[in-house]
């Protein structure tokens, strides 16, 4: 009795997600199929990678493969898998959204991060600044963002992983600067949040506010996004990479429960392992993500300036603590934003 409305809603959600995410299935039948559930702004990246992998897979095994993509906010994407979407692999931009696949429904083992190199994060990025041409407010580092004459744009940390990363980056900077002085850290963060002109619900919304609406002196978002915007504009913006920032990992894993049922274990693993190959890493670096492969790193050295990258462990212990202490209702973020 109590279950039925929920179940109905769940089934509706699954049906909608599947139909909207998959789009039109290709007419030609491939030997194998794979469904990759990914985050919102990874469409172009994985469209290119899928071609590369399909070619590689055919050379290796002689089989053709059709890779279907589903993109959306990664929390929503994870929700769809919990509710029954049988995606073979996930490629997300937040560790917590993969963790939840273990916590709810036990779809993957708890130690999923140890199954692939670099804690299952084939590429990474960090939070950087985009300023208007010539950097008129001379914004160089995090301390400039609390100046009275600076107003910033970032997505809402309550609704966006992107915004959470930026909050954690600012927190990491404050911890390094003020050490154990909790009051100074809080004051810094309060001023930092107070200078935000608009809280959009997602990363792309914040980009629109800064670029199209002309709001704010600085946009805070992924380095990859910042570089893409700067590259597409005619010198209207420039990239500033702060001296210290957050290590934003892009975790990937295969969904054990799905690949067993779909009989795609081998190809799912190969799909994710190939992300670490030199060719794939070169392709990923071309989309402005930082990679681990040494050869590719050297090739792209001038695009990715050196900076100190703080992992979540250095800032808040682990993701679970960060979520409950900082972002949950009544947490640190709520307290800092209280009037």
């Amino acid at each position, binding site marked *: 009795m*109590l279950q039925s*409305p*929920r179940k*109905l*809603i769940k089934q509706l959600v699954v049906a909608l997600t599947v139909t909207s995410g998959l789009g039109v299935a290709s007419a030609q039948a491939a030997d194998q199929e794979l469904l990759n559930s990914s985050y919102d702004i990874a469409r172009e990246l994985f469209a290119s990678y899928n071609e590369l992998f399909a070619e590689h897979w055919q050379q290796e095994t002689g089989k053709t493969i059709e890779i279907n993509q589903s993109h959306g906010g990664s*929390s929503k994407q994870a*929700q769809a898998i919990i509710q029954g979407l049988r995606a073979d692999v996930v490629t997300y931009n937040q560790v917590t959204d993969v963790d*939840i696949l273990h916590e709810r429904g036990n779809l993957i083992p708890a130690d999923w991060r140890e199954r692939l190199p670099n804690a299952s994060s084939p590429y990474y990025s960090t939070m950087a600044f985009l300023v208007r041409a010539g950097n008129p407010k001379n914004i160089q580092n995090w301390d400039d963002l609390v100046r009275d004459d600076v107003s910033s744009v970032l997505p*809402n940390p*309550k*609704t966006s992983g992107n915004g959470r990363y930026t909050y954690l980056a600012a927190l990491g900077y404050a911890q390094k600067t003020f050490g154990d002085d909790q009051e100074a850290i809080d004051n810094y963060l309060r001023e930092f949040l107070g200078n*935000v*002109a*608009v*809280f*959009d*619900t997602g990363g792309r*919304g914040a980009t*629109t*506010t800064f670029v*199209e*609406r*002309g*709001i704010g002196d600085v946009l805070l978002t992924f380095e990859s996004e910042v570089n893409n915007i700067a590259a597409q504009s005619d010198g209207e913006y420039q990239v500033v990479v702060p001296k210290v920032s957050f290590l934003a990992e892009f975790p990937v894993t295969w969904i054990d429960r799905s690949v067993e049922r779909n009989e795609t274990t081998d190809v799912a693993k190969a799909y994710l392992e190939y992300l670490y190959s030199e060719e794939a890493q070169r392709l990923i670096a071309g989309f402005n993500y930082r990679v681990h492969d040494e050869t590719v790193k050297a090739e792209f050295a001038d695009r990715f300036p050196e900076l100190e990258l703080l992992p979540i462990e250095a800032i808040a212990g682990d993701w679970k603590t960060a979520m409950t202490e900082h*972002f*949950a*209702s*009544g947490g640190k973020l*709520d307290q800092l*934003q*209280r*009037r």
Partner: protein
Amino acid sequence: MSELSGGRWSPLRGNPGKRVLPGFALSMGISLLFISLILLLPVTGLLVQTAGMSWEQYWGVITDERVVASYKVTLWAAGIASLFNGIAGLLLAWVLVRYEFPGKRLIDALIDLPFALPTAVAGITLAALFAENGWYGQLLAELGIKVAFTPLGIVVAMSFTSLPFVVRTVQPVLEDLPVEDEEAAISMGASDLAVFRRILFPSLWPALMSGVALSFTRSLGEFGAVIFIAGNMPYVSEITSLMIFIRLQEFDYGAASAIASVVLIASLVLLLAINLWQARYLRRLHGR
């Protein structure tokens, strides 16, 4: 003739459905089933979600400081938006019913556009227009008025998406008003204002009120259009729908449903009150 269309005398009065169309039981059954499936079931689902919480938890969630601030913002903005719609909607309905001019059909069709447009598209468009570098925003900035990314932006988005409610509820009533009443009043020497106040307004008032109430309740729940223009600053321009959205992002369905239930109950109470008031008013107006 006017008596017939006014509905004061009709051979079908009493239980018209039963006499004219057969199959009353069947159609009534289908209607009830339909209402249950598409209205009552989801509402029940919502309440079931909150049933897992204790009273203290429920109360704690819905009286959270930031959530209460969002009620205030939402109520104020919806209030101003629906008042504005009451005036603008009445004017539009009046012009569309009483005047003939080229392009009238086109304008009549355009009125429904806010209903047909995805609300997110409306929000993005309005934000583009009212931002300080947008067409309207530039002019307003010279007057020192900021609309986009302030609470005023919320009002603009709400009134845009709910304007058709007022026009579409007032329009048919205005069309049915017998012109003879006005002519009689004028021939007896009533001023324009008196005609409006004594003849037109009493008949329009119930429709106008229910149009404004619909516009208000629609505004309470508006998300897509508002979110892109509000700026979403905590305590200043966060609407209640955003609070629900935030709780959902935290995988906290109970809290999300709790806040949603407040909006739902407020809307239901308001609509019910308006309906009861309207029924009483109409009885008095027709002297029954």
